[in-house]
């Protein structure tokens, strides 16, 4: 057995004339947290749905848990847990009824379900609420219950499709603790998200843009590989004007607004700092602070996506 839980080769899915996933290739190592990142409509869900057997690929292959998704979908299904952005629980059933239904559907005996029940309740923090109807639970609780139901049968691999969508920061934090615990127990976690702060928790990341993978690696590798030039964080007045001015200069590689600050990518730190200050102050914009920062994943992604869409445009004009 290899150390890979999931192996994807040239996986492609076409809907009519639209290529949702375009020759995607990657591996997921056993027991790691694998983050699949991208904007809405970039192809995240389509990929996860193919890997779970909900959707057939147009071309390419993939194995999940060592089994081919096209040839042995039933073997795959026994080994995976799946939780999607929509809470796929029965709102008109109680907490324990949902647990026993999903346990049953995965072929767990009644005794086995009874054994696992306390574990799920504990994990979801739903002790004493077994008899509540699911629709009465808050979103954060529903999510934890949905995760509990998805891993009742102790799958090797768990697919989480935007599991933290629409949840408050505390619940998100709690949810990621659960994901860490799963991974610590040897379960491979494949998670899609568009929250870039969440990507920092992942061991390995792929960025998908318009159906194609545009970046990959661990968060640290990504920052090293894709951002070679120093990034300056500038605190100044009239941020938008400042950005427009800087964008006209050929020595400025990238600019973007991060909240109230400006991120400016330059070739050399000392020279860059001096040039930025001179330009802005010459135009009457006071610079209050300017530091070189450790790039965030957001910097990486913005840079990668800008490059990609730039390439796309130039290709389009040819």
């Amino acid at each position, binding site marked *: 057995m290899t150390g890979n839980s999931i192996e994807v080769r040239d996986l492609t899915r076409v809907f009519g004339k639209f290529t949702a996933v375009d020759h995607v290739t990657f591996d997921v190592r056993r027991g790691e947290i694998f983050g699949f990142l991208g904007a809405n409509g970039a192809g995240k869900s389509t990929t996860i749905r193919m890997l779970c057997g909900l*959707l*057939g690929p147009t071309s390419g292959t993939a194995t999940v848990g060592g089994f081919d998704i096209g040839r042995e979908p039933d073997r795959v299904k026994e080994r995976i847990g799946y939780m999607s952005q929509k809470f796929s629980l029965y709102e008109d059933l109680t907490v324990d009824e949902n647990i026993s239904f999903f346990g*049953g559907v995965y072929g767990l005996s009644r005794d086995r379900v009874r054994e696992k029940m306390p574990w799920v309740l504990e994990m979801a923090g739903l002790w004493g609420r077994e008899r509540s109807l699911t629709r009465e639970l808050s979103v954060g609780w529903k999510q934890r219950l949905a995760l509990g139901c998805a891993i009742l049968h102790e799958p090797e691999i768990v697919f989480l499709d935007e599991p933290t969508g629409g949840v408050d920061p505390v619940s998100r934090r709690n949810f990621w603790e659960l994901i860490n615990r799963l991974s610590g127990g040897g379960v491979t976690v494949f998670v899609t998200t568009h929250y870039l702060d969440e990507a920092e928790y992942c061991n390995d990341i792929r960025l998908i843009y318009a159906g194609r993978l545009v970046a990959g690696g661990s968060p640290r590798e990504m920052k090293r590989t894709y951002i070679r030039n120093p990034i300056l964080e500038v605190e100044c007045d009239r941020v938008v004007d400042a950005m427009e001015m800087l964008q006209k200069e050929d020595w400025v590689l990238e600019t973007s607004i991060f909240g109230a600050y400006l991120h400016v990518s330059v070739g050399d730190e000392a020279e860059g700092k001096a040039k930025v200050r001179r330009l802005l102050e010459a135009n009457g914009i006071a610079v209050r602070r300017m530091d070189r920062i450790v790039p965030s994943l957001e910097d990486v992604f913005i840079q990668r996506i800008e490059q990609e869409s730039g390439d796309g445009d130039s290709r389009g004009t040819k």
Partner: protein
Amino acid sequence: MNSVRVPHRLCCLRAVVKKEFRQIGRDARTLIFLVVMPGFLLLMFGFALNFDVKHVPLAVCDEDGSAAAREFIGNFTHTEYFDLKYELSDPREVDRLLGEEKVRVALVVPLGFATDLAAGRDPAVQVLVDGANASSASTAVGYISAIVQNDAVRMTTRLLHDRGLKGFVLPLASDVRVWYNPELRSAIFLVPGLMAFILMVILVVSTAFSVVREKERGTMEQIMVSPLKPGELIVGKTVPYIFISLVSSHLVLLLGRVLFGVAIKGNYLLLLLTMTLFLIGGLGQGLLISTVTRTQQVAFQLAILSTFLPTFILSGFVFPVRNMPPVVQALTYLVPAKYFLVALRSIIIKGAGLRAFWDQVLCLAAFAAIMLGISTLRMKRGKR
């Protein structure tokens, strides 16, 4: 490392059945719809759909006033078919009463009825019938002719007798006996049809929602990634509805018995077998609709469209299939209620054995198998 457990197929099926029971049990509207609605519809339709013509309002204008005239009129008023509403002195009033629909039949016995009769002349009696409703009018005309015929025969024999022709009998007399439904009550014929009609609509509508609702709510996706097989899902969804619809079928049978006096002459177990096959077929049709549609609204429309009119018109419920043009007759083979109706009438009214309708039972079984089979295939295809 986690060990992979091979799922127990029975656990999967049981989980689905249990879940469906719980959901139905928690959904009072569905439960009422399934259990109470059939009985309620039987009540409504049973009394409204009555082809018996009884208690027809009658006006009488007796210009003669003789004992013979009274005797003749008595033949009408002493039956349950006519209710004497008006006794008129002026025959011109008849016009008004018929026009205002106060009465549907008017009888005018002219002056000289008794004397003409005694003299052996042919007294003319005028009968006016409101023909606006052709069907009930023709039934009323039938009653009237029968009563007049009867009386004419009675009077003729008495006349001949009085004139010394003792021992005269009519040369030809028919002795008609009606089997199975001796009183020719339309209820006996209609109630089984109503049962088939009502159950069909209810069955298909109730399951038409079951799959499409899960699609809308997103729970179907969760089921699709599990090792549950499409066939298990379809069977698991059918089983609870079979039990519930069996209960409502019995309620309908009971109401038919209590309200309309329709008793089951034949074998109950045969009835149960036929009924169960019919129920499975209907539920299967609903499930099929549910697997091909995307929204509950469309599913509901399809369910009503595919049951209401076809069952009403093409099952032989009201209109006999053998009177239909061949093309329409061919269409009736697609309506499962038709097979059920033939079998149901055989069992309930005639008390017939399986030999009389085994082909119908076979067709019902085939229909059920086809519906569930296609639903299962659709579920499999739905993944792609």
